[in-house]
């Protein structure tokens, strides 16, 4: 059973689909943030987690982490490192959303748009989406290496 799941996650189609979904979504998500950094800073502030001194630097650098790591995952160049970073960002989003969900705070997720004109801003759907993306991260980080090393029969 364990071997079957491992083989599925390490298979070429799953690896490709995971990389395309993961890289594609993060690159797409970064575009609007790059275009409107001040609006993204407002959204980060609204999560009420980060000290105010770190909000602008996060607003300026986080979209580039998404785009650079996303390109690495898509292109297959340092893809595991890229996937680890995207996984880290996803964990951050999961914690931030859960924290605000528990506090009952009213916030704009800012995942794909800084204007709030996006669907699926319900915190529970956001959490489910991020958790599903973590499966793609797991496939790329833990199973692409095994596939490359020939430890698994695809």
């Amino acid at each position: 059973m364990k071997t079957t799941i491992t083989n599925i996650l390490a298979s070429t189609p799953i690896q490709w689909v995971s990389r395309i979904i993961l890289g594609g979504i993060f690159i797409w998500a970064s575009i609007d943030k790059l275009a409107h950094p001040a609006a993204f800073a407002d959204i980060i502030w609204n999560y009420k987690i980060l000290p105010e001194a770190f909000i602008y630097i996060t607003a300026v650098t986080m979209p580039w982490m998404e785009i650079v790591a996303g390109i690495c995952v898509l292109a297959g160049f340092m893809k595991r490192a890229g996937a680890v970073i995207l996984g880290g960002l996803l964990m951050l989003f999961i914690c931030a959303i859960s924290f605000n969900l528990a506090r009952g705070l009213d916030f704009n997720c800012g995942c794909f748009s800084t204007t709030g004109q996006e669907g699926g801003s319900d915190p529970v759907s956001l959490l489910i989406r991020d958790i599903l993306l973590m499966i793609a991260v797991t496939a790329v980080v833990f199973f692409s290496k095994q596939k490359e090393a020939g430890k698994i029969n695809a």
Partner: protein
Amino acid sequence: MKKLWIQILIILLTSVVLGLVYNQFSAKPLAVFSIYKSDTNTDKATGEDLTAYFTEMDAETLDGLRETGTIIILDARIPEKYGTAHIPGAVNLPIASFDVSYEATAHLMTEGKSLVLYCIGEHCIDSSLLARELYKKGHREIFVYKGGIEEWQAMGLPVQTPEGIEEQPGLQEEQDHENHDH
């Protein structure tokens, strides 16, 4: 394993450098090492000053006017948030779907009635953006309650929830009560 950590570091450093360089050469660079300050009077996408479209109104004035029939209160947040809790009598006009929502609510905005807009709170820009859209539609008596639903609830003023109208003790009231106890 060591190679992986080096690659992670390379990606992170590249991102930080690219972010700082891109910000430096952008039309409106952020002061990255300064303390965050919210500006809800400027359209972040265009840089337009929105204060020309509205006058600010405080909670006391709004509370005094809300049952006089002279104003229409408009909630600029998304319907899900409006449904959870809103100022009693407020109509939902989400900025996110302005064109559709305006068609459905325009008949309420009769001549002689002022429009009072609000969103989440003092750091929310949606009510200022909504003021601009309403101005473009020909409305002129537009007010924005900057404190938004957060301040309104914190002050203990009544809110409409799915369960009915609720009046919670405000923070100020709670503090006064605690001081009294001491």
